[in-house]
């Protein structure tokens, strides 16, 4: 294989197609790819490039590691010359050349970080980004020419892989200085822009990287919720920027609470929040129409009952003859005269189904339709909360 490669190359420059075929055959023999039978039929077209990519992805490190040193210098030179002709990539004069360089580029850059099922999309995503791969191509090429032993590189690359897979970095490390390991890892680090899932390497450290990935995805999902919650976060995509916004928002909310409490303290010299007074005024916009079912029962006569709205509430208003704990579900049936409250209020399910509309509406309706004395009991019995209402964090 390699001999024929070499022999071919020794004379004139191989055509790109021949090179492709040679590499594919070489890959076949050396990598024992699992199940990529599509790669077994290379043809001089984009399908060959696809197969090339697939084959090479199947044994990721091997490509970067092994492909280069085994091939002749001419092979490399063929590609080194092609950069001059084919790079920057999009409209180079010989399409096959550029195609091959594209493919090899994509193959190189996709070493070790693309999982097998995402190959197709990876191909799509990588080809438009070929422009960026110029540097990487050069780097890996340089690297390849240094090292002769493919096996050593594979072994070296593998643990490095799993280490770098766990990295969060979205940009490459940037120093092309010396090591092959760093080159391979650098190539991987540059990938995250267009490959969204990191590869599994089947190594012992895999569990860490998997767990890490799961954790990261969980965090990013929650951040998306936060994006909806925090105003103005839609345009920001980076984690640090979003965290900044969140911090600012939380700080502003806390400051608002401080300010409002100060205002309340100033307004109210005695800390007595008289609900009666509060609701006798036209405080809230009248939304009475939304509550047609609410009428005050004439039996309600306990003005001070709202004071005791803890678990043992004594409302002798006729609505709830029994003990009603506002924090528990109501089991006591509604006694006769009250029509304003649906019996659904007192079922174990959401009483808020009756109290649709805003928080304000509760007060406003109650105010509009009832005497101030009786409404509070109505209000707070309407605020029954079965315990299942609370704590539904659907995160």
């Amino acid at each position: 294989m390699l001999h024929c490669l070499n022999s071919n190359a020794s004379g004139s420059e191989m055509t790109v197609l021949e090179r492709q075929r040679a590499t594919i055959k070489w890959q076949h023999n050396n990598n024992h790819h699992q199940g990529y039978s599509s790669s077994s039929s290379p043809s001089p077209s984009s399908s060959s490039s696809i197969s090339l990519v697939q084959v090479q992805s199947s044994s990721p490190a091997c490509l970067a590691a092994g492909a280069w040193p085994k091939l002749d210098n001419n092979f490399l030179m063929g590609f080194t010359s092609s950069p001059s002709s084919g790079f920057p990539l999009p409209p180079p004069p010989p399409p096959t050349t550029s195609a091959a360089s594209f493919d090899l580029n994509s193959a190189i850059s996709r070493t070790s970080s693309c999982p097998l099922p995402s190959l197709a999309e990876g191909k799509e995503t990588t080809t438009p980004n070929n422009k960026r791969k110029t540097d990487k191509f050069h780097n890996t090429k340089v690297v390849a020419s240094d090292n002769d032993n493919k096996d050593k590189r594979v072994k070296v690359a593998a643990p490095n892989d799993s280490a770098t897979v766990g990295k969060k970095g979205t940009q490459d490390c940037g120093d092309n200085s010396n090591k092959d390991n760093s080159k391979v890892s650098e190539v991987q680090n540059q990938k995250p822009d267009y490959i969204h899932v990191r590869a599994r390497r089947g190594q012992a450290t895999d569990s860490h990287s998997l767990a890490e990935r799961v954790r990261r995805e969980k965090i990013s999902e929650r951040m998306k919720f936060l994006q909806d919650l925090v105003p103005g976060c839609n345009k920001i995509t980076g984690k640090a920027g979003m965290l900044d916004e969140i911090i600012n928002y939380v700080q502003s909310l806390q400051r608002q609470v401080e300010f409002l409490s100060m205002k309340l303290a100033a307004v109210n010299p005695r800390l007595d929040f008289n609900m009666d007074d509060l609701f006798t005024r036209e405080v809230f916009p009248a939304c009475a129409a939304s509550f047609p079912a609410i009428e005050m029962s004439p039996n309600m006569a306990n003005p001070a009952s709202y004071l005791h709205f803890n678990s043992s509430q004594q409302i002798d208003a006729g609505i709830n003859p029994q003990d009603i704990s506002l924090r528990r579900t109501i089991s006591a049936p509604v006694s006769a005269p009250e029509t304003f409250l649906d019996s659904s209020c007192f079922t174990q399910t959401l009483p808020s189904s009756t109290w649709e509309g805003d928080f304000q509406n509760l007060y406003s309706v109650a105010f509009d339709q009832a005497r101030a004395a009786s409404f509070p009991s109505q209000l707070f019995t309407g605020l029954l909360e079965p315990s299942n209402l609370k704590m539904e964090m659907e995160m």
Partner: protein
Amino acid sequence: MRNQRSVKQEFLRKWITGLRRYSCDEKKNMSFLERKKAIKLSADIAMASTRDKTTRWSQALIANASSSGDTLTGSSKNNSSRSRKKMLMMRRRRPKVKSAKKEMSASCIAKRLAEKRTRKLKNLLPGGESIDEGCLVEETLDYIESLRAQIEVMRYLVTASQLIINPYP
């Protein structure tokens, strides 16, 4: 998402209760600052108790309030001590291991930025120092929601109180 209305209602209810308890205890007239502190504290505690100790920040809030010797916490004191113990146990769970050498790679810079900010966020959140990152976002979400509800309720009260004093012309 939780039912915001019910949350607000519950919050208001608890808040008023707490305030009444407060004002009943202190027969004397409180200064402005004292009042403000009482209002804010009772509001915070009411807000935290609407979560019924399912979130860490609420536990921490109540614990802090009770540790400062507030009378409002009352019945929640037992729970808070328990929750505090739990928090202390959780505190040492994930020590951050920082590498000694500082690489200046872009990814590392980005990571450091994010770390700084998460630390800041943790300081903002009550009881947030002992939370790991995964839960941090959850807690922040919940906290933001509660803060919002609290602010709305307070605003209603403010407008109502103001209108009592200066009714509509």
